[in-house]
């Protein structure tokens, strides 16, 4: 087998035992690996009705077959479990170096079962698999955990090569908003996974190893990568915008089309003076950082200077500026940077946390809740109070318990469920769905809740990288959404990042896959695999209790047009697009995959 290692580590925390298993080649052919294979195994082994925090839930870490082979942007490790926030299937994408190191340690996949009696750390270092006592690390932030673990290894050369994924205090306290952090990067779409890891009393996983990965045709593979690097360098979005400012360059573009939401998706007017790319340049000295084998380098590090903290931090990404900043009315980059850093230290998901805070702010704004009841003076634009709330939320100290349960629970507690801006229990990523119709349809139908990175339609809708489409128009959008959802399922399953689709077409990946894995797939073959994975996830969610009725956006987006800003008058036209989307997917009018669709995709028995 090329690319993959073909081995899986199964750890039962209740018994404290582990077992090494082979991964069957048929599954790998049908689902490629990564997200697809993880979902397949999770669905085979775990009942969809499982309580996310019970011992029966499992946690799967899986690296795709292209991770670590040098395939460009092949760094992503997927984490699959049932989310404790939305009760859907959850699939986080971990960036950085963990995924590649997991394969060098000799495994494609780690399956975590049961629950340890005391906090533990799973360490796979130099071929030795151990469960180490983790009491010493419990209660520490993610960066403290990482530093202390590396110090305790006692060998600076081994610790330099070791990579950790850990949970912060938020995950330990079983907060549904908790996510997992690796190498101080926030993982994407991880809301609800931190609590699952915390419920298993697993503080961290450390990997290091020296296994070799085989590729099928090395010389062709090297040539293909040379071509792909040249392609990325000649595309302005990847070579300039992304590598200069990271995803933060989207702020200005989104604002111009009315896509940047403000004050819990209620208004669209703001000044870019404080948060645009120019402000970013003057606020921070940017230093690029890359995930494994990435020629783009969109992660920006900097020295943060804030009255409460001075030191290393991340430059806020679009997600942080949108969710923790503008959508909470905060437009000061240093505060947003602090909030983003606190989320990474505490192990909180920025989208879910930002959504919760914005909901709390609107509750207070509408006088549905008083600041005294919430114990926080959370008003739109009050950055300092927001930072205090984030700190207390994660540690469950003070009176932040209600906030920590997430936006939906908070809105319901004050009888205003209409103020929860989210789908399937998860908060919306910061894109105004009324002003970008295709992405709105994706948010409504996505299996993992409304997150843009599972169907990056704005690459065509807003950035016009491959096709010139208008974000406010619905012409051809259902097809676009389906194509992007399938393509992302494929890139995730291979272990590649989906951002380079800005500079590369999906078909450019085909020679990379074939030369690495020794296969002879065409682009259409791969997209069929993507569709199979999408349908499999859909089936899991349906069995878990979701139906076509959950494929909708909050009433605000369907009934109230945008009142101000560049997108004035726009309204989400989901009801017009949904039937067409179901038809293209081969689902009935309730959104259930038809028997013939299941048959063509080879899912009739699953």
């Amino acid at each position, binding site marked *: 087998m090329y690319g993959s290692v073909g081995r899986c580590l199964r750890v039962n925390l209740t018994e404290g035992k582990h077992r090494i298993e082979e991964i069957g080649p048929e599954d790998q052919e049908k689902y490629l690996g990564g997200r697809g294979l993880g979902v397949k195994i999770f669905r085979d082994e775990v009942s969809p009705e499982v309580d996310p925090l019970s011992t029966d839930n499992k946690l799967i870490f899986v690296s795709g077959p292209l991770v*670590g*082979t*040098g395939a*460009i942007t092949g760094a992503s490790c997927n984490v699959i479990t049932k989310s404790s926030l939305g009760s859907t299937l959850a699939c986080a994408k971990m960036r950085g*170096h963990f995924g590649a190191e997991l394969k*060098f340690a000799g495994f494609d996949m780690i399956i975590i079962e049961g629950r340890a009696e005391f906090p533990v750390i799973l360490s796979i270092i130099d071929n030795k698999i151990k469960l180490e006592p983790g009491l010493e690390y419990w209660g520490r932030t993610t960066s403290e955990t990482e530093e202390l673990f590396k110090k305790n290894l006692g060998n600076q*050369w081994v610790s*330099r090569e070791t990579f950790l994924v850990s949970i912060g205090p938020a995950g330990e306290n079983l907060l549904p908003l908790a996510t997992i952090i690796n190498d101080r990067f926030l993982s994407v779409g991880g809301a609800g996974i931190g609590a699952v890891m915390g419920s298993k009393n697993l503080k961290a996983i450390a990997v290091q190893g*020296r*296994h*070799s*990965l*085989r*590729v*099928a*045709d*090395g010389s062709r*593979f*090297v040539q293909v*990568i*040379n071509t792909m*690097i040249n392609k*990325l*360098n000649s595309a302005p979005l990847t070579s300039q915008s992304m590598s200069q400012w990271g995803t933060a360059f989207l702020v200005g573009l989104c604002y111009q089309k009315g896509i940047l939401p403000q004050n819990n998706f209620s208004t669209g007017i703001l000044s870019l003076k404080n948060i645009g790319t120019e402000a970013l340049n003057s606020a921070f000295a940017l*230093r*690029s*950082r*890359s*995930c*494994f*084998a*990435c*020629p*783009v*380098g969109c992660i920006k*590090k900097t020295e943060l200077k804030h009255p409460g903290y001075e030191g*290393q931090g991340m430059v806020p990404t679009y997600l942080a500026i949108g969710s923790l900043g503008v959508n909470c009315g905060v437009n000061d980059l240093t505060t947003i940077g602090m909030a983003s850093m606190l989320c990474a230290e505490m192990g909180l998901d920025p989208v879910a946390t930002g959504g919760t805070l914005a909901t709390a702010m609107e509750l207070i704004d509408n006088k549905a809740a008083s600041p005294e009841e919430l114990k926080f003076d959370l008003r739109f634009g009050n950055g300092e109070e927001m930072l205090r709330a984030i700190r207390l939320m994660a540690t469950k100290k003070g009176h932040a318990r209600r906030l920590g349960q997430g936006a939906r629970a908070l809105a319901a507690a004050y009888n205003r469920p209409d103020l929860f801006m989210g789908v399937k229990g998860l908060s919306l990523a910061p894109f105004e769905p009324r002003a970008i119709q295709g992405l709105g349809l994706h948010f409504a139908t996505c299996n993992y809740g409304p997150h843009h990175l599972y169907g990056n339609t704005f690459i065509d809708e807003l950035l016009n990288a491959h096709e010139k489409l208008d974000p406010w128009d619905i012409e051809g959008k259902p097809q676009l959404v389906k194509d992007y959802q399938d393509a992302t399922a494929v890139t995730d399953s291979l272990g590649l990042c989906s951002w380079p689709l800005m500079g590369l077409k999906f078909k450019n990946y085909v020679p990379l896959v074939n030369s690495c894995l020794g296969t002879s797939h065409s682009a259409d073959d791969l997209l069929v695999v993507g569709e199979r994975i999408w349908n499999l996830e859909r089936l899991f969610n349906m069995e878990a209790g979701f139906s076509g009725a959950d494929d909708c956006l909050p009433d605000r987006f369907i009934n109230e047009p945008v009142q101000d800003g560049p997108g004035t008058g726009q309204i989400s036209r989901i009801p017009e697009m949904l039937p067409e989307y179901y038809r293209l997917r081969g689902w009935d009018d309730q959104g259930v995959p038809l028997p013939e669709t299941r048959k063509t995709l080879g899912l009739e028995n699953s």
Partner: protein
Amino acid sequence: MARIKIDHSKCTGCRHCEIACSLNHVQNTANPRRARIRVMRDRNRYYPVIAGPFVDAACTSKLFVEVGDLQYDMCALCRASCPEKPYFIEAETDIPLKCDFCGIPPSPSCVRWCNSGALELVED
């Protein structure tokens, strides 16, 4: 003579050079521990280090050097594979490794894949 110039301030730590080297020297194989270039991480900075000659004894040179307000760990930046440091030792054969300046022209494989500008081929 052509040389590889390293500008560590540009390095983003993607380690693509390590894999380039490994694929070029060991057929169809990707493994950073079989590469002749490694990226050392020191807090928030990355330093690409190219394997130099093998030495069979530990050295007596100064461990930390301060330039401006930055402190450099000279042992980590040292190019030699030596008994003190398990770097640049082939993962499967345990043979010490040394850069053989592969792939001229147009440039060595690590330089070709370095997209950040940290590695550069210069003539002087």
